[in-house]
Structure formats: structure tokens, C-alpha cells
């Protein structure tokens, strides 16, 4: 198999010698305000269908080089201005000025990836539309791993949740189109119910506080943001198809949009099907997956002051869990550790998904209305409803494998009123109130006492955030209060079974302070300090029973108190003559009454044998680390990138390390982009880009032997080759991506993947992607 790819790669490389046409055209000019004519500094420009993008300098000047002859759409983005898409036909070097119009909604939160334009003092890293579609084979958790300081906590390859600077699950807020994702994140084996392909931009805020959003407030946020509909009256869209050799996976994503003064619409759909994945040596039996997702976006401007948009998304998946990872008791678990190949491993590939498996449906409906009282004041009202239906199937006796062993339905309703005002002297204020209701109900058809009880939770929040720009400094200060009311109905574990009620009221407080300072135009320094509290989640308080996700009996603790966290971050961003850039973030977080799942000395005897017992406990903890990313442009074509992240966490009360923290890792990326097109027959490959990415994940040494069933796996090296190019076919421009993951087909296990107890991680995987925009 590998040889075939090698031949193919060589085949693609050979035509390099045959180029003829000039591909070193330059497009340059200025970006100006349409009304005032003043130059706009730091506006972001992106050439659609390529990975080219620039930011204007302090005089509003831009220069995009190494362009081939052809037709391009250029997207101009600047905060407070309407996003503009312009069409350019390039025959020769071109100097042209573009104007962009200030949006009436001066205060609108435009998403800008250029770091200098961010309206926050917090560190923001983002994935743009191109990198999302180029990695369409990955799920959300895996996709975000390319950002320094972000890892994924996994169960197999299909179930993956993001970990940002050591925080995940209940401590990490995920926002899907501005709405806090409400799902059933009861364990490490539950991944967020989001299709990343719906998003045109994914941002990760690595900060001290996210006071504007409902959620944990402990610092980090992942924002999944579908882009607003382009103001283009023609029907536009894109299609992306992905094929993977490992798991024989097929994925298709289609996006269509049309602007209309009456009502604009956008539709986005994804279909995915994959079968058993493979390690270098054996199939991972029963690891197939199916996914059907759809999102609909409608936008209407009632006047130049009143705008309403509606967003509906549905996410539906069926995920197989490695058959050999489903255990009966401690003896089975110990047996599994001793094996080279997991039990139940079959010799042949299959698309069939049997128990154990998960079936998850998640639907979101959101209506948002924005009203501009005048040029400086804006009022927003958002209403949203979510429905999450999670069913987990185990291997059961008596034909019960078709009856879910866990079946929870969760409805959540969200309402928000938000007000923003822009004052003189560059002061900006934002305030809002929010209400969120969660209604979680177990389906009794399971015939098993539920792990998580039924509950009704109300959260009411209020916040105020202010920013001020003063010379070279930018300040941000905010505060937030939440009242959380949990109404829980559990079933007793003693006989006869009885209903037990719990009523809890928690108060959450959050406050943060940020300062950003431009030392020079190219060197930016930022400092943040935040304090936040988090109330214990339902699973931490009341879960009870056998949890496959922890390979043991999990017990909640009704005496848990609110977590209190103090976090500080220090960031530095420097650009050196546009040739090099360095981005560093150091953080320290202290959490008092940190809630964690503690392995107990007790081994519980049941008729099924002995099980380890895990109980939720509290301690004082610290998490600190450093994320580094550096880029260097050796010349026009050759780029080198380096990512490094270091993280360490300690349980300060028991003087032991914190478990489930990502291993330190270092990533090196070398990419070469051909400045001239490559001719193959009558077609030419534009912007051919070859990229080699190597990631070394260190062994997790910061853990004691008694903290886990088996020792953490050895460090490993993971190599990825990526080739991408655009080809013009008449009026459409096709983008091809060809990627090989784990080129050396090494056997490895990852500390953050729970499947490491049972099996190796994925072997070589070749991925072909074809996309076109019309």
C-alpha cells in the first residue's frame, strides 16, 4: 500500500520540471474606507480557494505575491466593516485600491483572525475555513489539535473531546454559533455533538475568563462559528468530498448560499460513513461510524437597524466502540492489558456497527435579533432550544443488546438579552442577562439504574464587560454572576428502590482583568488575570454505577463545593520583518476545591466480580504551562513552523500529579509552495503546496504508577505528509488535498486515548480530498 502512495507522490512531483507559465504575479494596493478615504491598517485579506492571506500594514498597503494567472475572489475583512468579496482577473502584476464600507453595526462582533484586530486582551487561536475543509476527515477534537496547547481526550478515534491548556469537559465551554453547547458530557467517552464542517471559523480562546458566555467561566472557550451569508445575489456554494483508506471512509459536505434583500439563506450538509479502522497490525473491530448533519441559516434585514437571523442544525451519529474494550470486571481488564491483539479482533474489514455503540442526535434552533438604537447603541435578543438524545448500547444478555444500556434525553432552553454601547474616548460597554434551563430525563426502558439522575437545572446569569483603548494600551475588565438551581430526582441504591430528591443552589462569580500593550507595531504583549468559580456538575454530585468510560464503578459525592479558580496568563506576539513571527503564552492556574475522580483503595465485590471504585473528590490543584509557536519564511516558497506545548498539573493537597493532562509535545512543520504552476497535460496545478508535519509526543512522566491501571505509553513520533493544489476546470476551481497520516505506519499508543488500555492507535491512513467552490 505504502509503495503505491510513494509512486503517486513521485508522479506528482516529477512535473515540477515541466512548468512554463509565470506564476509570480503580484497583486498590491491599498485598502481604504469608502466614505472617508482613509487607509485601513491591519485589514485581513484572503484569496479564496488558496491558502494565501495577508494583512495590510500600518499605511493600509497590501501585497499578495506568487499568484498565478487566473480569476480570483478576494475577501476583505476588517472589524466594524462589511466583509467584502471582490473579483479580480489577473493577467499581469496588478496594483489596485479597494474600498470597504463601515457597517452601521459599528459594534458588531466581526470575527477577525488577524491578531492585531482582536477586540480582546485574551489569546485567540483560530482555524479558518480553508484549514477546516482541508481536514474534513477529522472530527472537532482532532481538528483542533493543530493549535499549540490544544489536545484531544479520546476513546478510540471517533470519540474525541478537546482539551485546552489542560481543561476539558465540564471545565471547557464550547459555543456552537454563540450558544453554549448543551450536551451530555458525562464522561471522557462522550464527545461534543458538533460537526466542525458547519463552521467557517473555529476559535480557541486561551484566556482567563469568558464572562460573556454561559458555562464554566474557568477560562478557555472553543467557538464554532458559521460565517454570515456573503452579500452576493448569485447562488454560490462549495462541495467537498473526502476518502480515507483507513476505515474506507467516505465523507461529503455540501454548502449552498444565496443573498436576497428579502431573505438570505445558507444550507450546509454532511454525510460520513466509515468502517473498522486499522492499526499497523490489526483491525479495530467495531470502530465504524456514520454521521448525517444538516444546518440551515436564514438572515433577514427588516431595516438598516433591525436584523434577524435563524439558525437550525441537526447532528446525528452512530459510533462503534472497539469490541475488545468492553469489559466485564477487573479480571477482564487485567486480561486485556496482557494481550497484544484485543479480544474479538476480526481478520476482515467491516462497515457493520454492533454493540457496544453510541447513537447521538443533537438539534439546535436559534433565533437572534439585533436592533441598533443609534450609531453607538445596540440591543440583541437571542432565543435558543437544544435537544440532545444520547443512547449507548452494551453487549447484553437475553437479546437486550438492541435496548440501550443508557438512554438520556436532554432539552435545554436559552434566552439572552444583551446591550452594547460605544462611548467617547474609545470606551465600549457590554452587558447582558441570560437564562438557561436544562431538563434531563432518563428513559426507563434501559432496565438499568441510570448512571446520571434526572434533573432540572436553571441558571440565571448577568454580566458587564468594559474595554478601553488608551494610546498603545487596550484594557478589558469584566464581571459576572450566575445563580444555579439544580432540582435532582435520583433513585435510591438500597432496596426497596425509592425516589430521593435533592435541591441545590449555587452562586457563581467571575471577574477578569486584561491589558494588552503594543510595544512596537510588531511586538504585542498581553496580561490577564481572572477569578472564577464553577459549581459541581450533576455527574460529579450524583453519578452512580458501572461506567465503562472509567472501567469501574463511579460514585458521585453530594458534599462537593464550588470550585474556585485564579488564573493568570502572559502572552507575547512578535513579528520580525514579516519573515518570522513568534507567539508565546504562559499560564498558571490555581484551582481550590478542584473536583476530580479519585481511584479508591476499595475494590467492590459484586456478582460480576471485583470492580475498582472511583469517587469524586476535591483538592487544591495547580495547572501551568507554556505554548510556543514560531514561524519563519526562509524564502517565498519555504516556510518552517514550530509548535511546542508544555503542561504540568499538581494535586497540592495530596502532593501527587493531576491525571489526564496532555503529554508535552513538539510539532515541526516544513512547507514548500511552488511559485509557478505545474503543468500536467493541458491542466495546471496552481499553488502546489507540499507540507511535512512531524509531531513528537513525549511520554507522560508526570504521573505515579498507582494513579492508573497501566503505565503511560512511551513517547512517539507521528509523521504527516500533505499535498494540496488548485486546478482550474473551465469556470470552476478544484482544490485537491492529499494527505498521509502516520506515514511510517508506527504502532503507538497515546496517553490521552482511553483505548490505549486495549489496542494500538491508528496505522497509516491516506486521505484524498476534492473540493470546489462555485
Amino acid at each position, binding site marked *: 500500500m505504502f509503495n503505491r502512495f510513494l509512486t503517486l507522490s513521485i508522479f506528482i512531483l516529477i512535473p515540477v520540471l515541466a512548468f512554463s507559465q509565470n506564476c509570480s504575479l503580484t497583486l498590491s494596493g491599498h485598502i481604504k474606507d469608502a466614505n472617508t478615504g482613509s487607509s485601513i491598517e491591519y485589514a485581513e485579506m484572503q484569496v479564496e480557494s488558496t491558502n494565501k492571506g495577508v494583512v495590510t500594514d500600518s499605511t493600509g498597503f497590501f501585497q499578495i505575491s506568487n499568484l498565478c494567472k487566473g480569476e480570483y475572489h478576494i475577501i476583505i475583512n476588517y472589524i466594524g466593516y462589511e466583509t467584502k468579496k471582490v473579483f479580480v482577473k489577473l493577467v499581469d502584476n496588478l496594483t489596485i485600491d479597494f474600498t470597504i464600507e463601515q457597517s452601521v453595526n459599528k459594534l458588531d462582533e466581526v470575527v477577525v483572525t488577524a491578531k492585531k484586530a482582536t477586540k480582546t486582551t485574551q489569546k485567540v487561536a483560530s482555524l479558518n475555513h480553508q484549514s477546516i475543509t482541508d481536514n474534513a476527515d477529522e472530527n472537532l477534537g482532532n481538528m483542533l489539535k493543530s493549535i499549540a496547547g490544544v489536545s484531544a481526550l479520546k476513546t478510540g478515534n471517533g470519540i474525541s473531546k478537546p482539551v485546552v491548556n489542560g481543561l476539558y469537559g465540564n471545565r471547557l465551554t464550547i459555543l456552537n454559533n454563540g450558544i453554549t453547547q448543551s450536551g451530555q458530557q458525562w464522561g471522557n467517552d462522550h464527545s461534543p455533538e458538533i460537526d466542525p464542517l458547519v463552521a467557517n471559523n473555529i476559535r480557541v480562546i486561551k484566556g482567563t475568563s469568558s464572562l460573556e458566555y454561559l458555562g464554566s467561566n474557568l477560562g478557555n472557550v472553543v467557538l464554532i462559528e458559521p460565517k454570515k451569508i456573503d452579500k452576493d445575489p448569485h447562488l454560490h456554494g462549495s462541495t467537498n468530498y473526502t476518502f480515507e483508506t483507513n476505515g474506507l471512509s467516505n465523507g461529503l459536505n455540501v454548502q449552498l448560499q444565496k443573498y436576497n434583500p428579502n431573505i438570505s439563506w445558507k444550507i450546509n450538509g454532511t454525510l460520513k460513513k466509515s468502517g473498522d479502522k486499522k492499526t499497523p497490525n490489526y483491525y479495530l473491530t467495531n470502530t465504524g461510524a456514520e454521521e448525517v448533519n444538516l444546518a440551515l441559516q436564514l438572515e433577514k434585514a427588516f431595516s438598516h437597524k433591525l436584523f434577524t437571523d435563524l439558525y437550525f442544525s441537526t447532528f446525528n451519529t452512530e459510533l462503534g466502540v472497539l469490541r475488545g474494550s468492553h469489559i*466485564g470486571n477487573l479480571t477482564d481488564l487485567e486480561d486485556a492489558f496482557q494481550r497484544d491483539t484485543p479480544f474479538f479482533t476480526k481478520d476482515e474489514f467491516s462497515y457493520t456497527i454492533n454493540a457496544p455503540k453510541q447513537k447521538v442526535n443533537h438539534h439546535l434552533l436559534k433565533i437572534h435579533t439585533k436592533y441598533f438604537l443609534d450609531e453607538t447603541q445596540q440591543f440583541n435578543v437571542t432565543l435558543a432550544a437544544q435537544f440532545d438524545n444520547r443512547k449507548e448500547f452494551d453487549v447484553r444478555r437475553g437479546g437486550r443488546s438492541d435496548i440501550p444500556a443508557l438512554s438520556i434525553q436532554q432539552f435545554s432552553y436559552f434566552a439572552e438579552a444583551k446591550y452594547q454601547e460605544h462611548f467617547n474616548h474609545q470606551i465600549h460597554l457590554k*452587558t447582558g442577562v441570560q437564562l438557561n434551563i436544562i431538563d434531563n430525563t432518563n428513559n426507563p426502558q434501559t432496565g438499568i439504574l441510570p448512571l446520571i439522575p434526572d434533573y432540572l437545572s436553571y441558571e440565571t446569569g448577568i454580566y458587564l464587560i468594559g474595554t478601553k483603548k488608551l494610546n498603545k494600551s487596550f484594557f478589558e475588565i469584566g464581571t459576572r454572576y450566575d445563580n444555579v438551581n439544580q432540582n435532582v430526582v435520583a433513585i435510591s*441504591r438500597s432496596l426497596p428502590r425509592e425516589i430521593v430528591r435533592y435541591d441545590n443552589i449555587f452562586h457563581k462569580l467571575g471577574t477578569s482583568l486584561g491589558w494588552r500593550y503594543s510595544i512596537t507595531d510588531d511586538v504585542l504583549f498581553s496580561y490577564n488575570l481572572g477569578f472564577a468559580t464553577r459549581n459541581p456538575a450533576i455527574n460529579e454530585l450524583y453519578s452512580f*454505577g458501572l461506567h465503562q468510560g472509567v472501567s469501574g464503578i463511579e460514585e458521585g459525592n453530594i458534599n462537593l463545593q464550588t470550585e474556585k479558580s485564579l488564573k493568570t496568563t502572559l502572552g507575547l506576539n512578535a513579528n520580525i520583518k514579516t519573515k518570522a513571527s513568534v507567539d508565546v503564552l504562559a499560564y498558571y492556574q490555581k484551582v481550590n476545591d478542584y473536583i476530580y475522580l479519585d481511584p479508591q483503595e476499595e475494590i467492590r*465485590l459484586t*456478582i460480576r466480580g471485583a470492580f475498582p471504585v472511583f469517587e469524586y473528590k476535591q483538592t487544591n490543584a495547580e495547572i501551568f504551562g507554556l505554548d510556543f509557536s514560531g514561524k519563519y519564511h526562509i524564502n517565498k516558497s519555504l516556510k518552517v513552523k514550530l509548535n511546542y506545548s508544555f503542561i504540568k498539573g499538581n494535586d497540592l493537597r495530596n502532593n501527587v500529579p493531576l491525571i489526564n493532562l496532555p503529554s508535552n509535545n513538539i510539532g515541526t512543520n516544513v512547507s514548500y509552495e511552488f511559485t509557478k504552476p505545474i503543468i500536467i497535460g493541458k491542466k495546471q496545478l496552481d499553488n502546489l503546496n507540499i507540507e511535512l508535519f512531524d509531531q513528537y509526543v513525549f511520554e507522560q512522566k508526570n504521573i505515579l504508577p498507582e494513579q492508573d491501571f497501566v503505565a503511560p505509553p512511551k513517547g512517539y513520533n507521528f509523521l504527516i505528509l500533505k499535498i494540496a493544489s488548485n486546478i482550474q476546470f473551465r469556470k470552476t476551481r478544484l482544490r485537491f488535498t492529499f494527505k498521509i497520516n502516520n506515514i511510517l505506519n508506527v504502532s503507538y499508543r497515546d496517553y490521552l486515548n482511553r483505548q490505549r488500555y486495549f489496542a494500538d492507535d491508528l496505522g497509516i491512513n491516506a486521505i484524498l480530498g476534492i473540493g470546489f467552490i462555485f
Partner: protein
Amino acid sequence: MSKIQTILAAFFVATILIISSCKKEDPVIPNEEEVITTLKYTLTPDSGGTPIVLSFQDLDGEGGNAPIITGGTLDTNATYTGSMELLNEQENPVDNLTAEINEENKDHQFFFQSTIPGLSVDYNDSDANGHPVGLETTLTTTDAGTGTLKITLRHQPDKFASGVPDGDITNAGGETDIEVIFDVNVQ
């Protein structure tokens, strides 16, 4: 500005007041028909006399009270006819799950491991493939001794694997549905 803030604050207070009066409705308690609470291994001496019953009973399942485990005393150089019974005593009337195992006998097998020298258990039953199940057995003793007898029920074991048809659990795989250990005295 101040007007809007007042409205927002009022909305905030009102919602807190309204919601504190709502209650979640009572859940339906699931019918735990799959649960095995009790295992009884009845050993009837071939020479006649009172049967010995080894039993494991855990009425409230995984949590709560510890299980009640009853071992037994066997004679030396004796042969017993063993009969396995699995019950769900949470149900009323008591649900006998032995038949459920027998119906799926191709997917189940009991294994018997003893630390007492000379104590052995042989299968007296078989599934459609001619492989043992272990609901019906013969237990033989030789010398006196004190130790344990471990009974394991595996769901979906590889009944064709080497040694498994002879009662060796090593290559069986599958998931453990039952694993209980009894104190046994042969005298």
C-alpha cells in the same frame, strides 16, 4: 442606558423568582430484569445425603450492602452432582435466569477453578456445537484440604479456543457476567 439596565436587572430578578418554584417530575424506576442477584451451586452427593449449597447473594446490586457469600464443606473422595441456579430476587415473584442462560448456551460458559488439590469439576451438558455450558456438572474430591472454588460465567467467550472446551479459562475471552469465589473445606 440606565433604563435598559433597570429592565435587564428586573428581568434577572424575576426569572430567579419564577424558576425556584419548578420541580422535576418523579422518574419511572426501571425494571432491572437483567440483574443477577443470586447464584446457587447445589452439590448433591452421589452417595446420598443432604445437598450442599454454595451461594452468593447481593440483592441491591453494585452499591449498598455487601453480598452474602456462603461456602461449604465437602467429603473426601466423593462425587457430587452439581446444578447451577441463577436468580433475580429483586423481582417478585423471583425471576429464574437459568433458563435465559440455557437459551443462549452457545454464548455462555461457566468455568470452575479450585485451589484445593484433587478437586475437579467436569461438564455434564453441552450446547448445539457440542461445547460445554456448565449448568450441569460433576464435582469430584480426593484428599482433604481447605481453599476456594471460583466460578466464572463468561458471555460471548471463544468456545472454540484451545483449552476452553476442557474448562480452561485462559483463552476464553468474552465478558465476565459472574465471578464469585467460595470458601470450601474438604474433610
